[in-house]
Structures are given as structure tokens and as C-alpha cells.
């Protein structure tokens, strides 16, 4: 582990930096389901008795910020490298969720063009009764510019 990365891990991992309230609209996740090609009416039809969001829908929920306010500016261009979702319980129309974000992982890979820093931001989603319904991870990669 590079020293600068270890310093960032020690300072920022698992420290909550954002909390948002998210109102879930069934029409929004039904349109998401249809555009993505879902056929099951439990995802597309608001009148279905088990109407719920497709598990991947939570990746569309965003907080106010993706990194802690005091996170150091890295020397490179950031890109969306991936999304991960962990489904824990159904998300339904008119639910109010609380999204709590923290940095879940920081690691590097070195390629031909130099070092790439990966930042994994996790939003934990909770329903009004405190049930943990999902985790949504965003993986950002920063390709560092050569110094000097």
C-alpha cells in the first residue's frame, strides 16, 4: 500500500460525510424498469400487488456529494468506473429513504500509463423504520497525471 493512500484510508474510510432524504416515486422506477427492458409487472405496473423497484434502481439515487468536503484533490481526471448494488429489502412506491454516504474503499492499480486511484463511495439506504434496504457503491477511478 502506497503511503499516501494509507494516509487517506486512515483519515477517511468509514467516516460518514453525507446524509440525504430520498422520496421514492413508483412512476420513476417503473419507467426505469421499462427503459432497461424489465418485463415483470412487479417492476413496471404500479397496480401490481408486489410493485417494487428493480434492485439496480438504487444506483440512480444520489447524495449531495460523492466525496468528503475536505478530501484532497488528486492530480488527474476522475471517471465513473463502475457501480455495485447490494439488495437487502424491497423498495416501494412512496417510501422515504435516508441515504448515508461514506468512503468504503481506497486502492490503487498501476497500468502502463501510470497509477490509477480507485475511490469506492457507499451510500447505505434505510427506510423510515430503520430497515437497511440496500447499499449502492460508486467506483470512481482517477488516472494520475505524470508529475514533473
Amino acid at each position, binding site marked *: 500500500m502506497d503511503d499516501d493512500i494509507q494516509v487517506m484510508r486512515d483519515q477517511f474510510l468509514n467516516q460518514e460525510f453525507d446524509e440525504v432524504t430520498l422520496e421514492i416515486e413508483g*412512476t420513476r422506477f417503473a*419507467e426505469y424498469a421499462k*427503459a432497461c427492458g424489465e*418485463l415483470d409487472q412487479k417492476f413496471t405496473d404500479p397496480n401490481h400487488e408486489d410493485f417494487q423497484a428493480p434492485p*439496480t434502481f438504487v*444506483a*440512480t439515487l444520489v447524495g449531495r456529494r460523492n466525496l468528503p468536503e475536505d478530501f484532497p484533490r488528486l492530480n488527474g481526471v476522475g471517471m465513473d468506473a463502475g*457501480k455495485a448494488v447490494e439488495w437487502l429489502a424491497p423498495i416501494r412506491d412512496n417510501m422515504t429513504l435516508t441515504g448515508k454516504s461514506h468512503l468504503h474503499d481506497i486502492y490503487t492499480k498501476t497500468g502502463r500509463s501510470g497509477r490509477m486511484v480507485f475511490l469506492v463511495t457507499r451510500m447505505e439506504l434505510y427506510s423510515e423504520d430503520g430497515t437497511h434496504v440496500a447499499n449502492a457503491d460508486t467506483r470512481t477511478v482517477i488516472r494520475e497525471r505524470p508529475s514533473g
Partner: protein
Amino acid sequence: MADQIAKISEVEFGVELPAFDPDTSIENVRRFGKYVGWGGGRFTDHDAARKEGFPGAIIPGVMSQGFLGAMIHRWAPSAQIKVIDTIFRAPVLVDQPHTITGVVTNIEEDLKQVEIDITITNEANETRVQGTATIELPA
């Protein structure tokens, strides 16, 4: 629909899921943008995307991930997706044909869970998105 499975005993290691050709049309992406978000020019306007350096408009990553989920549900309507991890290797271009393929890589009968590797490729058979999913199926 043919080639569907309903329970874990029907799943075989190494079996390929039925291929799925997602709707990458600009009309569908604009609809996604209108109702879900990600309606910016790089997703919904080829000229605007080219001005940003892309070959054309690109599918939002969250939509590509949704394609993978839909592909799993089309094969296994009773499946509960527990985890799905998606790596964006290269842009998925709007209005370009793409194919999603998947293969079963592990079966845990006791846990009623199946692991699947999924890939989105373009017409040149270049990998654009890779994913892995863990699903739970009825016994």
C-alpha cells in the same frame, strides 16, 4: 419465453443465459433521461457527445447496469438479485447494437444462490461492460 428457469435445481454450472439485445436507441435513452435522470447532452445528443470527445452519445452507466438486471430477470423471473457489481470498461454507444451474454459460474445449492458473469459487447465483439451477480432462487 423459452429458456427460462424457475428454481435452483434447474440451473447447471457453465450454462449460458439467453442473450439479450438491449434497447440502446436514442429515443429510449431520452425517455430514461426524462423520467430517471442522466438527460444531459452526452447521453441524448450525438453532436453534443462528439463535442465532449465521445464517438457519439453514450448510454448512462446506471442504465447499462439496469440492462444486466433485466437480462437476469428475463432468464429467471423468480430470481432475487442479491448483489450486482458492474465495471464500465468502455462507453456503450447509443443507437449501436449491443448484446448481453451471461454464464453461470457458481452454484451454492445450500444457500440457494447462483453466481453469474455478464458482459455487454458491441458489434465488433469488444467488451464494454462487465458484471458479476449473485442471485437467489427458490429451491
